[in-house]
């Protein structure tokens, strides 16, 4: 029982890690708290749903993130880049406006009801691991979460582009002076962050049903991950996602009355103790 809860916590933690890493990337480079991130996750899930019905789950797994990448690039080019000189509140409110538009779009195109998608045939069986019967799909989700974490860390730490992203996150003006095309970099990073949201959306679709409210819940949870981990810090976000996944799942089983409050109390404590988050050194 405990082991199954821990694994469910890992599954949720992996999902949160994927969504929140997108949020952290966008915050790191553009200094934007993106309130539309949850609705972009939802849009990715719904786009994936439609593709999956016509061309199968694996096609959806490819198309949804690509479509969201494109949307993210457009969002940066015709949104965030133009808003660089606005105060943070204005930009937050623009993303809030975007949230309203995307939610309405999803309700209009796909309706208000719940939709569900079945697991791909390859992963629909169960696995026996150490005496427990676990759905293969959930194990795959955890594996995907780990791969995303490793991949992003490798990209940021070891590649030339990752170096530019880190430099631009610290000081965009100086980075631009060194000859880095920060506009293209920004578009790519916001695209990647949005693609990660969409990817998490389609990965979630087979085990959480799709509804127009799915974005709002994930938004708050991934805010908590990003804030607890330290705004803009990827490694902090991965750690926080892992912790939050466990807190949510174990709490729901053993402390159902207060489980939903624990993450908020944790977030409040950390923000008061260290406003920049566990791994953050920026104020």
């Amino acid at each position: 029982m405990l082991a199954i809860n821990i694994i469910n916590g890992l599954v949720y933690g992996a999902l949160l890690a994927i969504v929140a890493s997108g949020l952290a990337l966008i915050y790191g480079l553009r200094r934007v708290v993106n309130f539309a991130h949850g609705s972009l996750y939802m849009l990715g899930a719904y786009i994936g749903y439609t593709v999956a019905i016509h061309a199968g789950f694996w096609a959806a797994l490819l198309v949804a993130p690509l479509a969201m990448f494109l949307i993210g690039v457009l969002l940066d080019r015709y949104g965030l880049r133009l808003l660089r000189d606005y105060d943070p509140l204005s930009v937050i409110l623009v993303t809030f406006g975007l949230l309203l538009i995307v939610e309405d779009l999803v309700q209009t195109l796909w309706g208000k009801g719940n939709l569900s998608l079945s697991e791909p045939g390859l992963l629909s069986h169960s696995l026996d691991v150490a005496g427990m019967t676990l759905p293969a799909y959930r194990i795959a989700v955890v594996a995907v979460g780990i791969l995303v974490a490793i991949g992003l860390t490798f990209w940021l730490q070891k590649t030339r582009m990752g170096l530019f992203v880190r430099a631009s996150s610290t000081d965009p003006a100086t980075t631009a002076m060194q000859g880095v095309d920060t506009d293209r970099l920004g578009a790519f990073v916001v695209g990647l962050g949005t693609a990660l949201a969409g990817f998490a959306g389609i990965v979630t679709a087979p085990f959480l049903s799709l509804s127009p409210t799915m974005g709002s819940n994930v938004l708050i949870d991934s805010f908590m991950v990003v804030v607890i981990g330290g705004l803009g810090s990827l490694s902090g976000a991965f750690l926080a996602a892992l912790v939050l996944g466990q807190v949510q799942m174990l709490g729901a089983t053993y402390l159902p009355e207060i489980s939903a409050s624990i993450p908020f109390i944790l977030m409040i404590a950390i923000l008061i103790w260290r406003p920049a988050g566990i791994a953050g050194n920026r104020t």
Partner: protein
Amino acid sequence: MSTPFRPGRLALATMGCIALTVAIGQAVSSETALSILTQAAIFALFATGVGVLLKQNGMVSFGHAAFFGLSAYCAAICLQETQWPAELVILVSLAATTIFAFLLALVIVRVPGIAFAMLTLAFGQLFYQLALKSRSLTGGADGISVAWPDTLFGIPTSTLLDNGIIFTISGVLLVLTLALLVCLHHSRFGQTTEAIRDNPERATFIGIRPTLPRALVFTLSAAITATAGILAAFNSGFISPDSLHWSISGTVLMMVVVGGYWNVTGPALGAAIYIVAKDLIGDLSTHWLSLFGVLLIVIVVFTDNGLSGALRTLAARARPTSAPRHP
């Protein structure tokens, strides 16, 4: 720059607005129109609370719905669990919410910028969860009814709940709050908080400790919002966790910015426009959420200070300038 303070003018304008509110309450006969106007006045008060925090402190709250709901829940629970007279319950609910907000403010106003907004979001959602989960006390997701007695302040409750009367009460409270805020803006305290808002470091250098003034503005802002919460609980006789959700705080923040928070009356204007337009457009189209999203983005990007700022600019342009300025 700000205009000089003219108390006589303010008193005159306040009395004029109160007279107008009473006249509207008497003249409008449509029950639907009055109930929408009441809704608009209550949310205008709510938005004014959120707006003063932004204007005087430069702080964004994504959690004010907590105060809106807290005072209403407090009233509902007191009326249900105790034998206190309802007049006392109203005072206790407002006082409890205000004191709580003050204690909370002493801790959280030290946190700067975006982290503060996230902190208010977390507190707001914490209260939402508490209201949702404490079923024995709050009725959980179903909410609870607020059982007002038959008479309140010596007047039969049914009379007070007449659409024209409740609108007049809400409207007059709104006008008085706005007048109070205009006085605050011109007071020494108002100037102090604005100095802290613009540059906390320099304000500290000239001997102002930032925490207490900031906390007091936060408390005032929460008290105004709590008053709106009590009015809403009186008007609808019902409170549910939905009123505490962060999306309510977000929507009200949207009203504040659409109206323009640099003017004292801006947030109220934004709220009134939102509520009335939602009703008018809601009949025509189901896409009013998108429309507001687009409107919000357009206003944030293209105006300096929301609709009230845009109106002021237009008025200034329309007025013939007495002395054309040359550089």
